[in-house]
């Protein structure tokens, strides 16, 4: 006689719960967070760094660059779809990731563990900075889409405040760190660099990327305060 097998009740009552096999959609949301960090946010960061670099050529070249960017077709749509909304999602989900992680570098002070913690703190710094940066530079004061040639003066005025200058320098380093380690993490977690040596070699590439971007960024900042 065939009898129904009694379903085995899970034996875990408290503590960390077992895998909810095949349930929920957190896989999709987490991977979206990861992907958005590279495209479009990483791509936008590179564009922004290159555009900032124009400041070294002077206020006119910088203004022309701002004018060019604002002349892109559907620029307001591009701005929201490829910059603002992805940043809000990446940051919001990132804060949630940070809140749910239990860092333990006190007991396990290993390099990867430090980088894990650093990725969370640089992310928080980046988010706080970007919020004020967008509000003050994009939505307050002189509207740059209408008056692109005043861009240099606007930034110069902001950086004349030594506190603001310090904020920009710290945030520049934090963002370059977060992005370059993020690229490394992306390669590791999407299975592009499954080998230990491959990850190590790609690590050097990402260090070079981060340092290069940070130097470029700080150099651009210098253009406004020299």
């Amino acid at each position: 006689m065939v009898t129904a097998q009694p379903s085995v009740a899970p034996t875990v009552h408290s503590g960390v719960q077992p895998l909810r096999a095949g349930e929920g959609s957190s896989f999709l949301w987490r991977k979206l967070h990861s992907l958005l960090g590279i495209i479009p946010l990483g791509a936008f960061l590179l564009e922004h760094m290159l555009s900032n670099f124009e400041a070294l050529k002077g206020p006119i070249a910088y203004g022309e660059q701002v004018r060019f960017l604002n002349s892109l077709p559907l620029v307001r749509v591009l701005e929201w779809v490829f910059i603002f909304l992805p940043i809000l999602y990446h940051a919001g989900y990132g804060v949630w990731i940070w809140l749910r992680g239990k860092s333990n570098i006190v007991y396990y002070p290993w390099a990867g563990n430090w980088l894990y913690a650093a990725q969370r703190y640089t992310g928080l710094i980046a988010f706080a900075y970007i919020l004020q940066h967008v509000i003050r530079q994009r939505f307050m004061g002189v509207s740059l889409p209408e008056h692109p040639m005043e861009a240099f003066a606007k930034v110069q005025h902001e950086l004349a405040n030594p506190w603001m200058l310090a904020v920009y320098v710290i945030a520049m380093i934090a963002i370059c760190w977060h992005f370059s380690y993020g690229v490394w993490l992306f390669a590791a977690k999407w299975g592009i660099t499954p080998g230990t040596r491959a990850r190590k070699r790609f690590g050097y590439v990402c260090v070079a990327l981060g340092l290069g971007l940070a130097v470029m960024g700080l150099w651009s900042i210098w253009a406004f305060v020299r």
Partner: protein
Amino acid sequence: MANKTVSFEIKRQASPDAPAVWESFEIEWRPGMNVISAMMEIAGNPVTADGHSTTPITYDSNCLEEICGSCAMRINGKARMACSALIDNLEQPIRVEPLSKFPLVRDLQVDRSVLFENLKAVKAWIPIDGTYDLGAGPRVLPQEQEASYPLSNCISCTCCMEVCPQFNEDTNFVGAATIAQVKLFNNHPTGRVLKEERLRALAGDGGIQECGFAQNCVEVCPKSIPLTNTISDISRDVLLQKAKDFLRN
């Protein structure tokens, strides 16, 4: 002449809800002694350093040679196997605590059944049960054996889960050990029949996506299993499986 002694501080807890207390013990030093042999001695003669009689300490252990995975505990703050923790290499007093991420049973004993549940959730086995003799299995190439052997060394000690910042009650992350077993069984020519089911299981809530790549797992693993390499490989497999499922539905 006084004999050389070894001092311990052991975190005691009579029941899951009882308050935790620290007790000090001092035992005679012997050459080559390890933490688990010291635990046995303390349990056999439960007298604290200041001479008070106490209850025998409770702990899990079995093989005493780092092959069964039972005696994982926190020694001087770090999760490791008590059997391979040699006294001579440790700073004293040696602080011994239970693993912190699993429900406590008593003293140093914790309930690690979440790993067993996770292994069941990903079908970490090779399905060969049937009503007739299935005959010889397919041949496993030497290269495949070489790749699988390190993964088969897992002793289910749960150290990789204990040290993982993502393995906690907020994420309910599955942990590295289970992911490594998915790779082991997916690589097996007969085990491969459940490959897609295993990958889909790992995309569930608490699945492989919760990994933050802090790499503590691979640092702590007593069997040197290439856990980060495995997580990277299986992440890609899970992603491709989900993409296929999405496009073929």
